[in-house]
């Protein structure tokens, strides 16, 4: 949640008082630190929060600087007009670099963005427009009446204000819905999409924010140094930024700031011996990823947890005011419409030569608990993937409440009321239990994020309501005691429960459970049965893939049996159990599953 501690006002105060005691050289260094901190916060947003390996952040910084320099010298624009145009240009460049990210991730994205950054450097040094290797000099200063922005002291305040705004905005984003969606997408892209997050949009958005912030820093750099040259924005600087963010802690805004302070200070202390500093920060990167993967911020958080020290903080009263009306008890689902909830009509899915599904048809009535059984590899999970929009079928149609949803994407299926769990648990591992649920509870469309700019208080209000509802839901699942634990640290049975809770948080009308009993002990299995009945009791139609015959026979009202990608039998559990085709062709005499029938 958003807390304003004693620390932040103190830091802001210090930041603003600093120039009084510093000499002008040190102020100059401080300006550089703040500029790098701004760029590093941008990198932390796109890479740490968004999980996008962006090795072009230095190029964003450079785009802002060069665009503003070019417009205010060669084209003679007023610097105050050149500056916003340069920031917008950087945003456009960032969105262009983001296009590959729509399809490429991880190291693929790393090499593509690195390549584009390299191309940017080579363009700067070779193009006549940008002055080649000698760069652009005589960039005019920004001018404000009454201030001397060509001197370091007044410029310091301009940069300090920019830093405060950027850090404040990044903290706000990082701790609320947008940042949570970024982190969800970083931790598990399939689960994020299945929770209603439109991945493409958020990848673009992550790059856009990185570009925006990088552009601002670039503009401020150009009008301070009054000179731009290619090597200020080359790969060396990119790696320096990377080191700041990794050492500080990838998904921590403060980490990025601390990283910038440490590395720029170190760089200035070690000026005669530049190569050694590079050796040192290369070594620090390696040491950090091996010994403290979450950086200084992660180490600090661990220490705090170990010593059990809460941050001294005063909560903003209007954020957590206890007198607020309690939010309405979570409605698990709207009352289900009558009729057929889900209809699959002769769906086929091929992977290269493999026919995973061949003309599969089935129907699930409103409010039914429908079981899908069959041997491993018979196409059950593939069917779920088709229904939930992860795969597009080669032929056939899927209807949800009579509406043709064939080939709709995953996030849209979530918004149409279909939620699912995954066979091999896909939680947002580095989010807390509460945040996992809040991701799914959050049904705001992506456009709603415009509120960050025009109505931030609405963001805060919604956040508070969402949090309260998420806590209620966690109580239903008996997970409220561990609400603030990271999902990855939960015991296995609880992780399974959390995944079902997260799916329900999306308020589905149809819930797809993929082997929910796998790995659960006997007591947990009993709990699961009760949970499934309760979910149906709340009006949700449940489709469950399961190997556990005890659960299937006791809970499901109808069954569909799969074999080699086809439906080989359907009916009530009793009918299926006595169906000779099922016994002969699928279960075979004497298997444990046959014995259970």
């Amino acid at each position, binding site marked *: 949640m958003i807390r304003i501690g004693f620390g932040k006002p103190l830091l802001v105060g210090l930041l603003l008082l600093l120039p009084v005691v510093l000499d002008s050289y040190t102020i100059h260094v401080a300006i550089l630190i703040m500029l790098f901190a701004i760029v590093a916060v941008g990198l932390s947003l796109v890479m740490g929060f968004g*999980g996008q*390996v962006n090795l072009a952040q230095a190029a964003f910084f450079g785009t802002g600087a060069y665009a503003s320099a070019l417009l205010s010298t060669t084209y003679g624009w007023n610097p105050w007009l050149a500056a916003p145009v340069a920031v917008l240009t950087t945003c456009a460049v960032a969105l262009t670099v983001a*296009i*590959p990210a*729509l*399809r*490429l991730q*991880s*190291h*693929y994205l*790393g*090499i*593509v963005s*690195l*390549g*584009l950054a*390299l*191309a*940017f450097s*080579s*363009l700067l040094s*070779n*193009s006549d427009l940008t002055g080649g290797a000698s760069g652009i000099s005589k960039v005019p200063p920004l001018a404000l009446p009454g201030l001397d922005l060509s001197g370091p002291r007044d410029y310091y305040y301009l940069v300090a204000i920019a830093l405060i705004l950027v850090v404040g905005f990044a903290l706000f984003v990082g701790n609320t819905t947008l940042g949570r969606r970024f982190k969800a997408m970083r931790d598990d892209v*399939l689960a994020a999409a299945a929770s209603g997050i439109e991945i493409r949009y958020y990848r673009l958005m992550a790059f856009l924010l990185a570009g925006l912030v990088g552009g601002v820093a670039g503009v401020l750099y150009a009008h301070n140094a009054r000179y731009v040259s290619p090597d200020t924005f080359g*790969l060396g600087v990119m*790696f320096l930024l*990377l*080191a700041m963010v*990794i050492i500080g802690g990838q998904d921590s805004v403060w980490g990025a700031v601390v990283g910038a302070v440490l590395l720029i200070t170190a760089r200035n202390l070690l000026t005669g011996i530049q*190569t*050694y500093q*590079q*050796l040192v*920060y*290369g*070594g*620090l*990167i*390696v040491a950090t*990823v*091996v010994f403290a*993967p979450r950086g200084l911020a992660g180490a600090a958080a661990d220490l705090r947890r170990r010593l059990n020290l809460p941050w001294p903080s005063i909560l903003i009263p209007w954020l957590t005011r206890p007198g607020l009306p309690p939010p309405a008890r979570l409605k698990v689902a709207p009352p289900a419409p009558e009729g057929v909830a889900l209809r699959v009509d002769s769906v086929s899915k091929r*992977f290269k030569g493999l026919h995973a599904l061949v003309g599969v048809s089935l129907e699930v009535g409103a409010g039914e608990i429908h079981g899908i059984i069959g041997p491993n590899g018979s196409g059950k*999970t593939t069917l*779920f*993937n088709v229904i939930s929009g*992860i795969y597009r079928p080669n032929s056939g149609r899927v209807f949800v409440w009579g509406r043709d949803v064939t080939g709709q994407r995953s996030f849209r299926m979530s918004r149409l009321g279909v939620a699912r769990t*995954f*066979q*091999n648990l*896909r939680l947002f591992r580095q989010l807390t239990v509460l945040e996992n649920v809040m991701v799914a509870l959050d049904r705001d469309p992506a456009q709603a994020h415009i509120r960050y700019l025009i109505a931030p208080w609405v963001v805060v209000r919604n956040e508070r309501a969402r949090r309260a509802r998420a806590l209620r839901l966690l109580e239903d699942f008996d997970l409220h005691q561990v609400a603030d634990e990271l999902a990855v640290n939960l015991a296995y049975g609880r992780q399974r429960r959390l995944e079902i809770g997260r799916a329900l948080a999306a308020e589905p009308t149809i819930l797809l459970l*993929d082997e929910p009993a796998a790995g659960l002990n006997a007591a947990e299995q009993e709990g699961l049965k009760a949970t499934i009945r309760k979910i149906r009791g709340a009006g949700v139609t449940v489709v469950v893939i399961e190997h556990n015959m005890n659960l299937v026979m006791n809970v499901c009202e109808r069954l569909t049996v799969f074999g080699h990608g086809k439906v080989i039998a359907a009916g009530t559990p009793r009918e299926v159990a006595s169906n000779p085709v099922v016994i002969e062709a699928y279960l075979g005499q004497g298997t444990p599953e046959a014995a259970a029938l």
Partner: protein
Amino acid sequence: MTYFLQTLVGGLGMGAVYALVAMGFSIVYRTMGLVNFAHADVVMIGAFLAATLFVTMHLPFAVAITAAVLLTAVIGLGIERILRPLESKDLNLMLIGTIGFGIMLQSAAILIWGSFGVAVPTPIPNVPIDVGGIIVTTYQLFVLAVSGIVMLLLYLFLDRTKLGTAMQAAAMDRSAATAMGVNVSSSNAIAFAIGSGIAAVAGALVGPLLYVNPALGVYVGIKGFAAAILGGFGSIPGAIVGGLIFGLIEAFAAGPLSAYSELLTFVVFAGAMMVRQTGIFGERTVDRA
């Protein structure tokens, strides 16, 4: 037509070097799933080592290249050992770790050899040969021949030796390979050593073509990496084809638009990757839900 063929032939030499770099990336990737960003700088270190032994210490080229291969193999082993705890944990973190190593190698090179670099003479007399109006130099042929031999040796190793087969098995399924008695850790270490060794061959060969300097890795290595991805990451034939394609794109872009050649190369690359993420020879892996 002559211009076309001449440019084509010109691109083949660098293409073979990129292919070697790409093979080094690929063998590490296919064996342990690690994307070694430090590989580019291992190429540069290899180039410096070979240049020092050959130019400064006047050793025969064959001896210089062998020693460089052994020394970089040791560097590769060191990187693998230090990053081993991260293996199969977090791909992005490991990737960043190798970037850290790259930065260290680059600054180590500057400390040892200075930032200016050395010019390396060709190890054999570099004579232009006229083949039907197209000029081929003997050194280009030498580069192609050595690269071809290395590629053949690697293929024979992976396909015909017990150790090579075991490494392939470890690449396909770690746990099954472990159950069959394959030592997966040592197979990773060997992959790293071989990958780094091949990097040194590439570095040694590229020395006389370019100027050996600490930034060499950035240019040769990143294109080699991109070539590996373009060919289909982890695929050995893919690495060869990807490398040759990069050599050719570069040769054709360098003529008329030299200021924009890097931009053009990487925009073409980004576009190609968008169309086919798995590269030319890559298999699409299904992300199991």
